[in-house]
């Protein structure tokens, strides 16, 4: 059975109602111009969600055009479809994308994060790809110390992780990596950026276009309910004290239903019955109908009486704006309707023929014989107003006058225990990271590595962004984010293929926020050009402000690479006592924006490290060359916490811990700077003693600076990490370092 909808009289369209929909008087005039009349209530709702920042990118579009989006491997470009598609050879391709679910997660962390995962997975299988792994990039306020804020941050962190686990584990897609940071700026406005990658054959690429006049339009998947009403509009506002009342704008996820939908859709896509397919994510039925019509250069007409509904008495406004999860719109080739019936009956999923493709470019919505909305599809989908917001530079960060000193013996364990640096085992142990039996480098190394057995390809993926750098210098911070992602891939033995990004910023109406957005976009674009990786798509999340202030600018970079031979897979943990420890790159000296300053001195200041792309790229090429020759036993990049943290992590992050004896030689550097500076373009590797001379000679030939730092020493309970610098001598039992690093998050979360 299906429920009838109700058709109450429309409320009067008043300036107050228009404002409540987030539509400005100028935008309203534009709507009147498009329609040639005043919109009715349903149409006003439709415009309000389609012209929200979340759907239209009206504040960010001019900036996004700055990204490089083309390249020889690009099969589907950014913005063309739900996700970009990149060639990986032998007729295979990958579709991947990152998306935010920040606002829903702030209000309702479990469901907010869960439906974020569900949404990004749909974006991938809409392309005809089988999703094979997920990553996520999460940011919360501080979880250590006292105070109500800390308790709430722990609740949000635990809820988000549980929500991601709930959805990903049930649907059977492994969550194999990502990042988690904790910083005051995310207090009350956590960032939840989820990434999904799928694989497909070139000929399987599916399109979200309503092609073929007269083709039937099918609705498949879960029934439409009143959940998530106007979620896209909610996501395009600042969070306030009253935002809790927006809880109905948060959707409820059903991963079991999505698993069925995924299998049914892939089965249907393999049958040649589909002319076009589009998921119903943000703005639900509204977005999927007008976007498919716009892409197809056609019109779409749907009858809301035929839409499967969860409850009686829903109005057209509610049905069109619902963001109920696990739904898809499919344009079926005429004559192939039975394939839909057979497959969706098999999977026990609701389906209904709800409309037809027309030739007049209109999105036409009826309720039985009553017309409830009639809007030119292309103008609704693609002609939202574009705003060139005012940008005002923040005062430039000032150089540090001096570097405060610390008890150095204590500094290293304290840095390792900082939740942003500490082991994330508490997190990824809750994620099924091994289903699909392809995870060959487990979470916790520089990049996740996954063998796609269907395609017999080895993929590496990472997500990176140091938002402290971006707060101090947005352009340089974004450039570093790209470089670090590429470096993580190089450390794993991979060549970068392409990038997806998630731009998390504050309210763009505030000129300094918009300036940060613009600087970061330009920085990302420079980075992507330097490593020759196109941006294949992504997501913009603005209005990330809690009552206190905007979040630090956080342009998260998701980068995917290819490893050509299983022998090249490299991890960050030291392997064997007696191996030599080498540093590729210089000792460095940049302390601005360092975790040392933040964790030990509570200072977020200074000029963050500069990046030289030529040097960085050369480093990656050299590292991959060494790996290709089978000379590298471990490789780990220097990032938060500098060289000292990188060396300690290589000792403690493997299944068995090892020690290391490091001698920096005679130096006049302040030890704090020597150990903890975060200068870029540096990697710690270990090589067999017998290969040291060969490696150093090869690196010299390639003009990559390198030096021997010391030797990997025995593991076990007596293992020590020893740093000698001139006459100074620092020793740490490795067991203590491991405990500080490993127990930090579980201890905080048990409080």
């Amino acid at each position, binding site marked *: 059975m299906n429920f009838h909808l109700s058709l109450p009289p429309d409320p009067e369209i008043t300036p107050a109602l228009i404002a409540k929909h987030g539509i400005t008087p100028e935008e309203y005039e534009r709507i009147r111009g498009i329609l040639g009349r005043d919109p009715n209530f349903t149409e006003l709702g439709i415009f309000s969600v389609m012209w929200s920042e979340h759907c239209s990118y009206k504040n960010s579009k001019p900036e996004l055009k700055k990204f490089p989006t083309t390249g020889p491997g690009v099969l589907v470009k950014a913005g063309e479809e739900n996700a970009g598609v990149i060639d990986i050879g032998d007729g295979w391709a990958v579709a991947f994308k990152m998306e935010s679910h920040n606002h829903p997660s702030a209000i309702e962390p479990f469901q907010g994060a869960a439906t974020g995962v569900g949404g990004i997975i749909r974006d991938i299988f809409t392309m005809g790809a089988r999703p094979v792994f997920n990553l996520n990039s999460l940011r919360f306020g501080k979880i250590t110390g006292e105070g109500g804020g800390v308790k709430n941050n722990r609740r949000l962190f635990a809820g988000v992780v549980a929500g991601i*686990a709930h959805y990903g*584990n*049930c*649907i*059977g897609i492994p969550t194999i990596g990502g990042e988690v940071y904790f910083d005051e700026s995310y207090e009350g406005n956590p960032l939840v950026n989820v990434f999904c990658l799928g694989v497909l054959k070139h000929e399987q690429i599916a399109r979200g276009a309503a092609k073929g006049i007269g083709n039937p339009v099918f609705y498949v998947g879960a029934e439409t309910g009143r959940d998530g009403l106007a979620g896209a509009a909610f996501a395009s506002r600042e969070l306030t004290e009253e935002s809790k009342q927006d809880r109905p704008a948060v959707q409820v996820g*059903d*991963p*079991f*239903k999505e*698993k*069925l939908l995924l299998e049914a859709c892939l089965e249907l896509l393999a049958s040649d019955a589909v002319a076009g397919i589009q998921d119903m994510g943000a703005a639900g039925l509204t977005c999927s109908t007008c976007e498919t019509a716009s892409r197809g250069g056609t019109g779409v007409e749907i009858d809301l009486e035929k839409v499967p509904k969860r409850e009686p008495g829903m109005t057209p406004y509610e049905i069109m704006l619902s963001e109920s999860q696990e739904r898809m719109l499919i344009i079926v080739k005429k004559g192939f309707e039975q394939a839909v019936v057979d497959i969706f009956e*098999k*999977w*026990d999923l609701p389906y209904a023929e709800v409309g037809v493709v027309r030739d007049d470019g209109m999105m036409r919505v009826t309720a039985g014989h009553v017309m409830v909305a009639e809007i030119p599809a292309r103008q609704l989908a693609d002609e939202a107003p574009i705003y060139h917001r005012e940008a005002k530079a923040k005062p430039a960060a000032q150089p540090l006058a001096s570097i405060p000193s610390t008890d150095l013996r204590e500094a290293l364990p304290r840095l390792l225990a900082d939740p942003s640096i500490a082991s994330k085992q508490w997190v*990824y*142990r*809750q*994620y*099924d*990271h*091994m*289903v*699909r*039996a*392809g*995870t*060959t480098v*487990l979470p916790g190394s520089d990049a996740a590595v996954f*063998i796609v*057995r269907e395609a017999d390809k080895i993929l590496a993926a990472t997500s990176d962004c140091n938002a402290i750098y971006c707060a101090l210098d947005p352009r340089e911070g974004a450039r570093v984010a790209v470089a670090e992602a590429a470096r993580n891939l190089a450390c794993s033995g991979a060549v970068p293929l392409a990038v997806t990004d998630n731009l998390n910023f504050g309210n763009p109406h505030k000129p300094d926020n918009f300036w940060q957005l613009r600087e970061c976009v330009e920085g990302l674009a420079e980075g992507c050009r330097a490593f020759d990786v196109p941006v294949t798509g992504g997501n913009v999340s603005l209005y990330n402000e809690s009552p206190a202030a905007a979040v630090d600018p956080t342009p998260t970079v998701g980068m995917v690479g290819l490893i050509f031979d*299983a022998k090249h*897979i490299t991890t960050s943990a030291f392997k064997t006592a007696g191996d030599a420890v080498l540093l590729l790159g210089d000792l460095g000296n940049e302390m601005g924006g360092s975790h040392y300053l933040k964790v030990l001195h509570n200072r977020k200041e200074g000029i963050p490290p500069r990046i030289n792309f030529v040097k960085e790229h050369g480093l990656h090429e050299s590292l991959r060359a060494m790996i290709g020759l089978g000379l590298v036993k471990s490789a780990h990049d220097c990032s938060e916490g500098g060289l000292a943290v990188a060396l300690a992590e290589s000792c403690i992050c493997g299944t068995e811990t090892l020690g290391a004896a490091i001698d920096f030689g005679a130096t006049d550097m302040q030890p704090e700077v020597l150990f903890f500076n975060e200068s870029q373009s540096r990697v710690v590797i270990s090589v067999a003693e017998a290969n040291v001379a060969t490696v150093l000679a090869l690196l010299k030939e390639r003009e990559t600076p390198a030096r021997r730092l010391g030797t990997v020493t025995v593991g076990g309970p007596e293992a020590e990490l020893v740093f000698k610098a001139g006459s100074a001598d620092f020793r740490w039992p490795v067991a203590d370092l491991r405990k500080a690093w490993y127990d930090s998050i579980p201890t905080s979360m048990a409080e």
Partner: protein
Amino acid sequence: MKAAVIRFPGSNCDQDCFFALNRVFGLATDYVWHKDTALAGYDLVVLPGGFSYGDYLRCGAIARFSPIMKAVREYADAGGLLIGICNGFQILAESRLLPGALVRNRSLHFICEHRFLRVEAVDNPFLNRAVTGQVLNIPIAHGEGNYTADEATLDELDRNRQVLLRYSDALGCVSDASNPNGSARNIAGICNAARNVFGLMPHPERACGASLGSADGNIIFRSILNSLGVSAAA
């Protein structure tokens, strides 16, 4: 020789099991849909892991009523080899094809990690290529893997040597510290009294090669092939 992997709605390790049996071990393997009612001509039946029916009631509680389960029961009653992995074990317990129940992990968290397992008995079709006391490294991934039964049942399992795998440390020491989920007597896998039905929470299909961190799962597949009289390919 032919194996069947049953697909329930929400099964998500079905493709991994198929891959292990068919691609790694070269065994002819079919998927069998849960709405089917016959299981003729199979020498091995696998109930794979996943979240059958979303596990929205108790895990496995709805799957036991799937149409195929009548045929599965008849197949097992006739002595056919039946293995349930993770959610498959939960389904076997709900169907009473194996005693006991699998309840929420004592930490209340889902746990995914490699665990050491001590082989407790090898006089069965599932571990005949192992030796008693051998330690296997095979991952677990579950929220409800805490094996529970009354004392009399646990005693009987021990007496009949139906406990085939226990959670241990790397040296084979079984203790509370090596128990990931609170399982009674560290039980990770059991067989029925007739020794032809095996349920285990760890995932041998995720430990079929060094590239996955362990190849110890192979010993279970090799044992099964051995008992079917097939020499293993891998």
